């Protein structure tokens, strides 16, 4: 039954509480921002106390953490990794490069706004963001999940044609498998 507080069902509130406290992260670290992930995960800043834990494959992960710029070549791999993840899934864009291209604004082969290609739930800005900022971004995502507002995956399914058109515009040799999830 819907709860009048924030119009979530009670079962969703319980599920979202569990999802919020257990975020398995797939860090896609080809940009320079990846250097901030090890201190976030290890002893100094210890993201594991919030239930944030690195995972090795897209199948097991909940959060795709895109660190830094994406060349059109790596964008293809990111899309593939994102589509292999299981629902519910979230994306965090990390660093200025995912927001407006950052220092790669003039580059001929990097994308500028990540949200045009895969749905981003939370952005962490900065060039590059320190581990404190990364953890703040994760806590922001946890708040969105608890309120049931982190619905990037649903948006992606509903507007798949728009996202596909954008993706195919920059990826010239499109030979990806079709997923019917």
């Amino acid at each position, binding site marked *: 039954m819907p709860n009048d507080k924030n119009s979530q069902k009670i079962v969703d509130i319980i599920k979202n509480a569990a999802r919020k406290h*257990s975020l*398995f992260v797939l860090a896609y670290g080809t940009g320079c921002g990846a250097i901030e992930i090890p201190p976030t995960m290890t002893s100094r800043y210890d993201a594991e*106390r919030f239930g944030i834990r690195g995972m090795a*494959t897209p*199948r*097991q992960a909940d959060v795709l953490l895109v660190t830094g710029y994406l060349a059109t070549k790596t964008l293809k791999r990111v899309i593939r990794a994102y589509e292999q993840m*299981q629902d519910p899934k979230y994306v965090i864009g990390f660093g200025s490069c995912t927001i407006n291209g950052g220092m790669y604004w003039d580059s001929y082969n990097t994308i500028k706004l990540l949200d045009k290609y895969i749905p981003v739930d939370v952005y962490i800005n900065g060039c590059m963001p320190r581990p404190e900022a990364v953890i703040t971004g994760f806590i922001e995502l946890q708040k969105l999940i608890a309120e049931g507002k982190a619905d990037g995956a649903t948006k992606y399914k509903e507007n798949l044609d728009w996202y596909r058109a954008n993706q195919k515009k920059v990826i010239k040799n499109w030979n990806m498998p079709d997923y019917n999830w």
Partner: protein
Amino acid sequence: MDTNSWISILGFIATVVLAFTVGVSYGGIVRKITARIQNRVGPPVYQNFFDIFKLYSKSTAVNHGWMQHLGPAFAITASVTSLMFIPVLNGQGEFWFANLNFKGDLIFLLYMMVFGSLGMALGAGQTGNPNSAIGVSRGLSQMVGYEIPWVLALVALMLQTKSTSITGIMDYQIAHGTWMMFESPLAFIAALMAMLGMFHYAPFDVTFAPAELSSGPASEFGGKYLAMMMTSGSIFAFVKLALFVDIFMGGASNLIMLVVKTFLLYMVPVLYGIVSPRYRTEQSIRYFWGWPTLIGVLGVLYVVFVR
């Protein structure tokens, strides 16, 4: 059905619930201890309950063929079936939650305990992921390694107690007022060294090696399948610990003793693992075929010729 059947069915359910709760809590405590040793705060001890609940509530839209769907089911079946043959508690001469004991169940357990890994190997093989294939071959090679000292230790126990059932070995310990770890210490040492491999903690985590194999056999399993594998792993950890407590440490007369004994036993592979790096596969097999096997053979000879 009469009252006794209902009581035994309730016993089955209670055993599974107990094994799940204890196994998952131990997983959380291990993560906390690891964190404290690495000078971190670490996740809360109930973190693994959150993880498993979240994974069960995820959708799972991966299809590589039906063996892939059966693999995790095999794993959980093998864990629960093995659990059914372990007497959890012993009172004055009688066994509570003895469940499905029969003569020769120790030999049956030897087979049943590898069934889950073989099922997972079939399931992981069908996913077609190269990391899974490498992980499976590594895991089965390592199993060949640690099974030898483990079986030698059990043979020593069976020869000494003239019994092939777990309750028989527990009866022997109660009748002689001692524990098998003092009666045949060589067998205990060999079994303990084999246990390091059974728990897949470092340095023997060649199967799941997240940094080089991206979690090996589990790499293509997400969502509910991963949850089933975690559940089965937690139950199976409890199975192994309870079996060790039953046959080497005289069983446990109440829940508190059970928790104390299994926890102390669990700390051996965990603490050894936290401070160790990872072996390569052939190093790991060579380790098990070296001292543990020799000690196991000596344990059998000790029982045959000295006692």
